[in-house]
């Protein structure tokens, strides 16, 4: 068995929701990630959904925590006590990387400059909502607010709904991924050139960098010559290109697009005698591109409404057309592709076997593995000497 890709890295995880996903990515690839928490327990253990505990006296298991705090070692530290502070300092000095969120557990006690003076090889990833300067630097921004300010909410929803958030904490999964990238980039630089770094990750900018068309429409409105101008309104599932949208079939919904091979889509409509005027040569004139898109999508909407979506989806994919059957999450466990690739993995939820998400990538030589972050908080080591002994980080500073 080969060693895991990151098995030489010792990481101190002082994140909250904004970057906990990044620490998860590092831990699941084998880094030794330690996540200390206050004696009152990590507040993120209070986030749902929950698995009801079958054991009297044991708390329900946070499935949020099981997923996002996976592959960590958990310790309680009483930062009110001198020996707790000493333990915290030893952890800080013994690790290769600190991933910290502004305001996260213990972060206010850290002097980043001093830490890097003591350990010049140390990498510090400093995650803030808006950076450490500017009028919004202290604004409170949970996922929904962060998504609103960064542009994600404005572009989600429909003309007859308010702006909408995405399901779950998708904005913070973006900043989390960037935090993981920041950590490993700085480690690569340290391995190659020597010396650690303090790396800042700005959540607001992370989200804004991942909005596909939003900045493009503003900057290149004149080049694109779109009637909407610099801002595309929210408009349901319709892609900025107008050539992808979710349509309603007889028994469900399906994402339909004639992209990338419009001729293939036209041939299919002709085959079913549903093409109407689409063979008119006027649609091939460059100046009629938008007209062609509009007419094609109009005809497809009517055509799809006569179809059952499951056979339509497979028929499209047989023709190498990227239709997407809108699936409820309740069916994801039965997905034949995920089953064939044995993607779901075992999760032990405080003694009960269950299943959960597998890896977002497959490495040919180094393993990925996950163990759920579900330790019963009452059983987490809290005595500083026990913590140090369990940790095995002594002498590495």
């Amino acid at each position, binding site marked *: 068995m080969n060693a895991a890709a990151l098995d030489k890295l010792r990481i101190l995880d002082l994140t909250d929701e904004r970057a906990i996903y990044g620490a998860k990515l590092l831990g699941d690839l084998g880094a030794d990630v330690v996540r200390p928490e206050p004696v009152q327990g990590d507040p993120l253990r209070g986030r749902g959904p929950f698995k009801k505990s079958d054991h009297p006296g044991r708390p329900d298991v946070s499935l949020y925590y099981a997923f996002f705090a996976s592959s960590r070692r958990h310790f309680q530290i009483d930062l009110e006590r001198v020996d707790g502070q000493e333990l915290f300092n030893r952890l800080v000095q013994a690790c290769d990387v600190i991933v910290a969120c502004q305001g996260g557990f213990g972060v206010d006690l850290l002097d980043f400059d001093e830490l890097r003076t003591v350990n010049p090889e140390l990498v510090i990833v400093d995650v803030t909502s808006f950076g450490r300067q500017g009028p919004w630097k202290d604004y409170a921004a949970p996922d929904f607010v962060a998504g609103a300010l960064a*542009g994600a909410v404005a572009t989600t929803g429909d003309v007859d709904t308010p702006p909408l958030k995405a399901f779950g904490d998708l904005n913070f999964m973006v900043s989390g991924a960037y935090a993981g990238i920041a950590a490993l980039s700085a480690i690569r630089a340290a391995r190659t050139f020597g010396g650690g770094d303090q790396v800042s990750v700005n959540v607001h900018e992370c989200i804004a960098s991942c909005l596909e068309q939003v900045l493009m429409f503003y900057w290149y409105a004149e080049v694109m010559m779109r009637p909407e101008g610099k801002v595309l309104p929210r408009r349901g599932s319709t892609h900025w290109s107008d050539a992808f949208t979710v349509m309603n079939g007889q028994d469900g919904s399906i994402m339909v697009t004639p992209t990338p091979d419009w001729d293939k889509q036209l041939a299919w409509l002709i085959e079913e005698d549903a093409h109407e005027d689409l063979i008119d040569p006027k649609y091939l004139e460059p100046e009629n591109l938008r007209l062609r898109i509009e007419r094609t999508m109009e005809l497809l909407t009517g055509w799809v409404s006569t179809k059952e979506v499951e056979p339509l989806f497979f028929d499209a994919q047989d023709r190498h057309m990227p239709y997407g059957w809108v699936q409820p999450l309740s069916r994801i466990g039965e997905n034949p592709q995920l089953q064939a690739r044995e993607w779901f993995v075992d999760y032990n939820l405080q003694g009960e076997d269950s299943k959960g998400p597998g890896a977002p990538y497959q490495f040919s030589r180094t393993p990925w593995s996950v163990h759920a972050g579900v330790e019963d908080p009452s059983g987490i080591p809290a005595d500083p000497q026990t913590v140090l002994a369990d940790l095995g980080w002594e002498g590495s500073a």
Partner: protein
Amino acid sequence: MTRPLEGLRIVDFTHVLAGPFATRVLGDMGADVVKVNSESRALTSNVPSHPYYVMWNRNKRALSLNMSEPDAQTLCRSLCEKADIVIDNFSVGVLDRWGVGYEVVSQTNPGVIYIQMSGMGEGGPWSRFVTYAPTIHALSGLTAMTGVPGREDIGLGFSYNDHQAGLHGAFAVLAALESRHHTGLGQRIEVSQFEVGVNFAGPAILDLFANGVGAQACGNLAPYDNWAPHNVYQCAPLDVADVVDQRWIAIVVENDQQWQALKDVMGQPDWAQDSRFDEAAGRYALRDDLDQHLAAWVGEFEDYDLMALCQSAGVPAGVVQNGRDLLESDPQIEASGFARRIEDLHPEIGQTWADSLPITFSERPCEEYNRVRMLGEDNADILHDWLNLDGQETQTLADRGILK
């Protein structure tokens, strides 16, 4: 100053968004990204003058290769033998057919890291399915879960999964580099964009397997936490028909302390004195009532004024900003220089812009933002730097139709 990834050599065969976004991130941090394109593939959004291409392909050098020519494949193999990373999002097997697949190249370049970002991954009944981000959103449950109850036709308003597949691809490459540092060995990484997308429903998938509960769209509610209010509310002016010109604010109360603060901001109105609102469970149960009261109150304020009022009291609130707001009136974006002009004008569309890497290295700043390069614009420099070919040799290749 040396950037974090300087010295890394990447052969980039990717197109559209997911793959180019991965190499954009790596290029921003100093990797030498050689983007391979060709006259025959440079169509629609794969044209260097298309704004979509411009968005994702800065900080890369452009090489044109006519891969239908055997000599182009040989040249490409020489490049891959010099590369640290080879990345593509073709269908499975394309690089093998060109003789530049992992099995071949790793024989002579054992440290090379190959990453393939396909839609569905290798193997399985759907492995040959064609996907774009909206396809993945639909199949993974993201579309059905994002919206309002009873509708399946809303979903995410942008290609979230493409960006995230790119970020996960970049992260995976960096992890493989760390492994290579200790072992000397590269490896092959496979990113299934479908599996990336399903992964984002992590807690909901655990809920499905553990409790049999399939998550559904819940509008602007937090799906699993009893937070209320947790919604958007329209600010003044209210009589705005055009969706783009409407002003909204998101307000979130996650605990009793924030609720008390919000009551203060609202001036302690009579309706808010109802003791049922004092605890989270009560607020959540009465969230529709809360929303009605807040909507009436918020409508009297302008958006940024109300945000400042709420935030100064400790209540999380954020204006629903669109692209214009971000780039014209967001003080954080303005102060940080996140949006920047690229000095070197694009030969066809002139001025271009870059949204900066949202990661700042204090010791190794990443301040270089080079414009998108035209098809084959860097052929001579790349072939010199990577393979030590001189100008005459490159010209000969061009004359033979290898570089087009």
